[in-house]
């Protein structure tokens, strides 16, 4: 059942580990407080040190790719918000963009701005949840509630405009489903004011905390080369110094018109990944601030046919979700349903690096590493 030969063979790490006879194999998950869902890890331990982590997936596999083969190009988008439920807007966005690419629809400027606004608010909400959950993983329980105080405001904004709080299905091919709610701008301003005041508390409570720094600094190191080789993306890779922000590299919608920085840290440890996300929140705030008062007037949706038929061909589009690069690969045979869909989910690639990162670390470190990878299990299983 266990791996025959090993790809990763770092002598500096294996020297810490004892011989086979003293190993303990322990199942973390599928029901475990720190796996954030139904991830099942089989861990080989030598005392407290982790020798090997082996993910077993599939507990929440719904075969969304197969499911999408029987849904039309309008219908399949809603399923994708159930993959990475914390960045559902971005997933929907990517699918809508891919369909638009195939149909060559130009979406109105208002819809573009709305989409970017929604993406950034979702990113903020997702990072807030991540922050609370990471703090909980390393043992501090209070930050979770502070994070939810802010996240709840974003959820309320979403609820008012999109109708739901988590799985929105707001982006449709050609634009967005409904126009912004009249209260939207007012509430986003209120949120920004509130969040700017409160973000210092995040630093006070967690970032500057000596225990937290000790728990994350130098833990779960992954080099730039390894991060690239493991196909990591998003904040997890940017913590190792990989330039991989799709918003900068392949700008979509209005990302080339707004000012923001791609946050890159080079330390490659848990604390670097933590800092990337913390700084990314500030960048997201600045993007929202730039756009919120400059939403162009006009249609929120381009005219599309009632039945969408993608021309024969292959289409790939990608966006930057809160977790990294999310890609949709559609093979169309010219019908109303996709012939084959592949979702390139960021979590799946990031998870594959977990084994490499945890070798020789302690169990407590493994929990912190999983926290900074920000795994969302439905995103990995699809």
């Amino acid at each position, binding site marked *: 059942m266990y791996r025959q030969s090993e790809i990763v063979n770092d002598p500096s790490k294996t020297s810490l580990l004892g011989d086979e006879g003293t190993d303990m194999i322990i199942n973390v998950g599928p029901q475990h407080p720190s796996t954030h869902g139904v991830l099942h890890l089989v861990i080989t331990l030598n005392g407290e040190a982790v020798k090997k982590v082996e993910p077993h997936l599939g507990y929440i596999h719904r075969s969304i790719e197969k499911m999408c083969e029987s849904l039309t190009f309008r219908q399949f988008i809603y399923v994708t918000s159930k993959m990475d439920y914390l960045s559902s807007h971005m997933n929907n966005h990517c699918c809508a963009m891919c369909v638009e690419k195939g149909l060559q629809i130009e979406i109105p400027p208002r819809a573009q701005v709305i989409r970017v606004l929604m993406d950034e608010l979702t990113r903020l909400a997702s990072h807030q949840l991540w922050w609370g959950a990471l703090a909980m993983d*390393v*043992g501090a329980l209070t930050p979770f509630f502070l994070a939810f105080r802010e996240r709840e405001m974003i959820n309320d904004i979403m609820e008012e405009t999109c109708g739901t709080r988590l799985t929105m299905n707001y982006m449709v091919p050609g634009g967005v489903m409904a126009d912004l709610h009249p209260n939207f701008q007012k509430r986003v301003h209120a949120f920004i004011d509130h969040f700017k005041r409160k973000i210092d508390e995040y630093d006070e409570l967690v970032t500057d905390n000596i225990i937290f720094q000790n*728990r994350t600094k130098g833990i779960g190191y992954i080099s730039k080369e390894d991060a690239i080789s493991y196909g990591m993306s998003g904040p997890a890779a940017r913590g190792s110094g990989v330039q991989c922000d799709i918003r900068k590299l392949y700008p979509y919608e209005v990302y080339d018109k707004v000012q923001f920085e791609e946050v890159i840290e080079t330390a490659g440890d848990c604390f670097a990944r933590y800092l990337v996300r913390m700084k990314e929140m500030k960048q997201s705030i600045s993007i929202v601030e730039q756009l919120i008062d400059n939403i162009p007037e006009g249609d929120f949706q381009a005219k599309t046919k009632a039945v969408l038929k993608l021309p024969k061909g292959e289409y790939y589009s990608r966006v930057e979700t809160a977790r990294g690069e999310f890609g949709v690969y559609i093979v169309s045979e010219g019908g109303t349903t996709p012939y084959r869909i592949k979702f390139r989910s960021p979590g799946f690639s990031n998870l594959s690096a977990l084994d490499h990162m945890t070798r020789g670390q302690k169990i407590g470190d493994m929990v912190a590493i999983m926290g900074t990878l920000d795994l969302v299990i439905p995103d990995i299983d699809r």
Partner: protein
Amino acid sequence: MWSLQNIADSVQHWLYATFNPTIAMLIEFAIIGVLAIGLFSMLGLVLIYMERKVSAWMQLRLGPNRVGPKGVFQTMADTLKLIVKEGMTPNGADKLLFNLAPFIVMISAMVILAPLTFAKGFQIWDINIGVFFIAAISSLSVIGILMAGWASNNKYSLLGAMRSGAQIVSYELSAGLSILAIVVLSGSLKITDIIASQENGWWIFKGHVPVWIAFVIFIIAVTAETNRAPFDLAEAESELTAGFHTEYSGMKFALFFLAEYVNIFVVCALGAILFLGGWMPLHFGTGTKFNEVMDYIPSSVWFFGKTFFLIFVIMWFRWTFPRLRIDQLLNLEWKYLLPISMINLLLVTLIAILNWHF
């Protein structure tokens, strides 16, 4: 005046006047047993309610508010639920040790109540090695925890128990050294003597900086010794689900839970006795009006007030800090707390010899 001392004395007089001494002593034993168990369960209920309220306030929540006014009966309802729950013993477990472990933990927590002075002259047993007795008995609970972890036949439990063993054994050193600091200053191990030595001022006020350092180290060490966050590695719910009591349910789990809170009470009471003067009221100077007002407050209120303040501090730690990792935990003890408290003990001895304290 009605005080706990007077009540205890008159009960004793009445008993010895009515029965022959053997029977009177036996009745006293029974009364003390009932009182100790009553205090034990009361503390459990009160402290759990307090913990839930304190955590709720820090986390912008309301806390329990449904059962009874402001939810005061919530813990009662929870206890009732735990009593009627089935106490399961896993198939692969070592049945005897598994069922014995919670009682060992609980009994060791209860025995430490004996030398504590709850009010002026109100004490179960004024043993002449009181502080030493507490330090000795409180290290027994680790046996119960190791027993529970081993007997559960669960890897999480075993890891938790082993962590807890390493932790308690090492933190006892610095806890003991900081207790010694006060013993050196007061010149006695007897709890009544230690309290009496603080009549003209608590040790925290008259002992200069070394006593403050000893106090801080004491608080840190006892937090670790009672397995409380940020040192709750034995439980570490995000790593080991629930650590050593993963397999426990029903009343056996409740006993662990109760023992944890009673242990907190005991160590905080010890902290109050050693550093904050036990039941001694707060005095400034001699013979001032302020001191007279302070004297009107009953000694039991002083004692419980100080203890609960320290308990609040320990809860405050729990709901603020992340958890340490096991090697960092041991580093903290062996590289920081132990050297500091050893040097500190030297300083305290110097102060005591040269009579520099007030």
